[in-house]
């Protein structure tokens, strides 16, 4: 064993693989076929759990089987502003009714169950999001200790209100909350804690966590069949790390909803650096935004496990961006027209769904696959008060034309202004290849690797070869 005395950044990162093996209990090496190629489905089958088993695990801790409701008032409003014959009906999967208030309970339920089964005394999760509360809640139910590591403050000790709230929730479930200032070394410190405690790494990106989300897609398919007699035409998914879209899409397919389009939606925060101390508190969404959505799609294995089980480009049919102002507006809409106070980050997909409903036919259906609990720190009023303190301009205006991440938040003046910014999925596939070529320092791939890329990018051989050529020409 490598000495664990050296706690420097480089030394700990060098011990990463070994720490992870002990803390996740998965030998990822065995799924590697050749070079970059690994057997994703085999990994999901062998270390994940079957849908039936996941349902059973989740029912033990009251997770899942959440209501799916039609947003009748919002749908009436859409019909009024949609062109003739347009205006698809929107249904909402109310994931806030899970024990800790978000779909993350599904991921945590399986991870914590698995940790307990393997005999770990505690669990650790590095997350500034709802996943922390989910892991803390599940650990409480299963009698395990829990440490949540958050990126929470800038160098002036100004805490992001939403993250502070999530920290409070974790403490309410009995977890120890370790709060860090801005920086990617959150991962380094998590490794140190895993080494010190010998706890299980309840990663968001393990096969267990992703298997936990499959029930969500499965429930959407069956509930929609019961309610409307058929599967939905589209499911809109708030996209950050990629686990929600991966798990939902896999669940939909397992239920037989193979024609349902899976659309990712993120809040547009392009231009703000995720690891920047000064940009940190210029963001009023802490998840569901492009700062996670794009990097995790183009390089999933940047996560805290060697092979990420969340692989969004395998499942995403379309990717759209919405603005902070639009999501705050829609959060008010959901509360005032449907009596559901939720979000705001979880309402990213609802915002996109409203824009998409306007372009889809009136006999079509869209499912928004999540909601999340809200309250102090999370509410639009909390985030916008903070935004104003940080010098942002908050105004009513055109939410896309006037939006400038880090400077201006424009709240729509009318629902007809709700729209999306298209982000071609093909662009992300090309970026995936570009980053791969840079990391690997080669643009020649073996037959096995190319077959893997066809699956990982859901693209044809021709497309992949052409994109690689295009990248080569661009760098020459």
């Amino acid at each position, binding site marked *: 064993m490598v000495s664990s005395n050296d706690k420097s950044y480089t030394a700990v990162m060098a011990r990463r693989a070994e720490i992870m093996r002990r803390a996740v209990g998965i030998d990822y090496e065995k799924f590697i076929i050749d070079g970059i190629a690994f057997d994703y489905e085999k990994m999901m089958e062998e270390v994940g759990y079957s849908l039936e088993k996941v349902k059973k695990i989740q029912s033990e801790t009251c997770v899942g089987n959440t209501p799916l409701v039609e947003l009748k008032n919002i749908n009436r409003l859409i019909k009024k502003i949609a062109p003739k014959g347009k205006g698809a009906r929107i249904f909402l999967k109310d994931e806030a009714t899970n024990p800790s208030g978000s779909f993350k309970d599904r991921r945590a339920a399986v991870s914590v169950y698995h940790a307990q089964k393997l005999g770990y005394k505690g669990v650790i999760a590095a997350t500034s999001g709802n996943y922390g509360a989910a892991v803390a809640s599940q650990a409480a139910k299963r009698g395990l200790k829990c440490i949540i590591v958050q990126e929470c403050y800038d*160098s002036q000790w100004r805490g992001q209100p939403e993250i502070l*709230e999530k920290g409070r929730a974790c403490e309410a479930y009995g977890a*120890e909350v370790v709060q*860090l200032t801005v920086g990617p070394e959150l991962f380094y410190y998590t490794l140190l804690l895993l080494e010190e405690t010998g706890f299980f790494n309840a990663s968001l990106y393990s096969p267990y966590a992703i298997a936990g989300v499959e029930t969500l897609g499965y429930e959407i398919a069956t509930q929609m069949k019961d309610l409307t007699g058929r599967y939905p035409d589209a499911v809109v998914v708030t996209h950050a790390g990629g686990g929600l879209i991966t798990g939902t899409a896999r669940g939909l397919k397992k239920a037989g909803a193979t024609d349902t389009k899976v659309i990712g939606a993120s809040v547009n925060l392009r231009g703000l650096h995720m*690891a*920047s101390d*000064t940009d940190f508190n210029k963001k009023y969404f802490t998840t569901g935004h492009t700062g996670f959505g794009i990097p995790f799609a183009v390089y999933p294995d940047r996560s805290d496990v060697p092979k990420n089980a969340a692989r969004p480009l395998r499942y995403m049919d379309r990717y759209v961006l919405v603005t902070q102002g639009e999501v705050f507006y829609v959060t008010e*809409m959901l509360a*005032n027209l449907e009596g559901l106070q939720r979000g705001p980050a979880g309402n990213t997909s609802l915002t996109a769904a409203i824009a998409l409903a306007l372009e889809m036919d009136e006999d079509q259906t869209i499912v928004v696959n999540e909601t999340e609990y809200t309250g*102090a720190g999370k509410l639009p009023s909390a985030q916008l008060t903070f935004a104003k303190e940080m010098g942002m301009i908050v105004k009513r205006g055109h939410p896309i034309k006037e939006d400038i991440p880090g400077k201006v938040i424009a709240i729509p003046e009318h629902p007809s202004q709700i729209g999306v910014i298209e982000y071609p999925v093909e662009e992300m596939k090309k970026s995936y290849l570009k980053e791969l070529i840079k990391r690997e320092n080669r643009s020649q791939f073996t037959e096995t690797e190319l077959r893997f890329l066809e699956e990982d990018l859901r693209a044809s051989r021709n497309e992949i070869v052409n994109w690689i050529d295009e990248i080569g020409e661009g760098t020459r």
Partner: protein
Amino acid sequence: MLAKKGDWVQIQITILKPEERAPQVPEDTKQVPLEMRVKGFLQDEAAEIGAMVTIKTTTGRSITGKLVAINPKYEHDFGEPVPELITIGMELREMLETLDGDING
């Protein structure tokens, strides 16, 4: 203010000095240390804010760091009423009620 043994307190530790930070960190973040705060029960007999103390966290870990708060309060709240948000509900309800009106008007 004096914290006594067993009090619920918060401590602060510098994890990485600016020069020890990860190579990929952007320039502004490289200028500042990576710092950490964590809460637990004070193990020292008594201590003032700013003193080096040892705490026991809820998972039973012993950690030593600088005392920064005694019985730390949750500071986040619901925010102030935001004029740009307050009228949205009324506007939308009115649109729904105006069944045949020119909704773009």
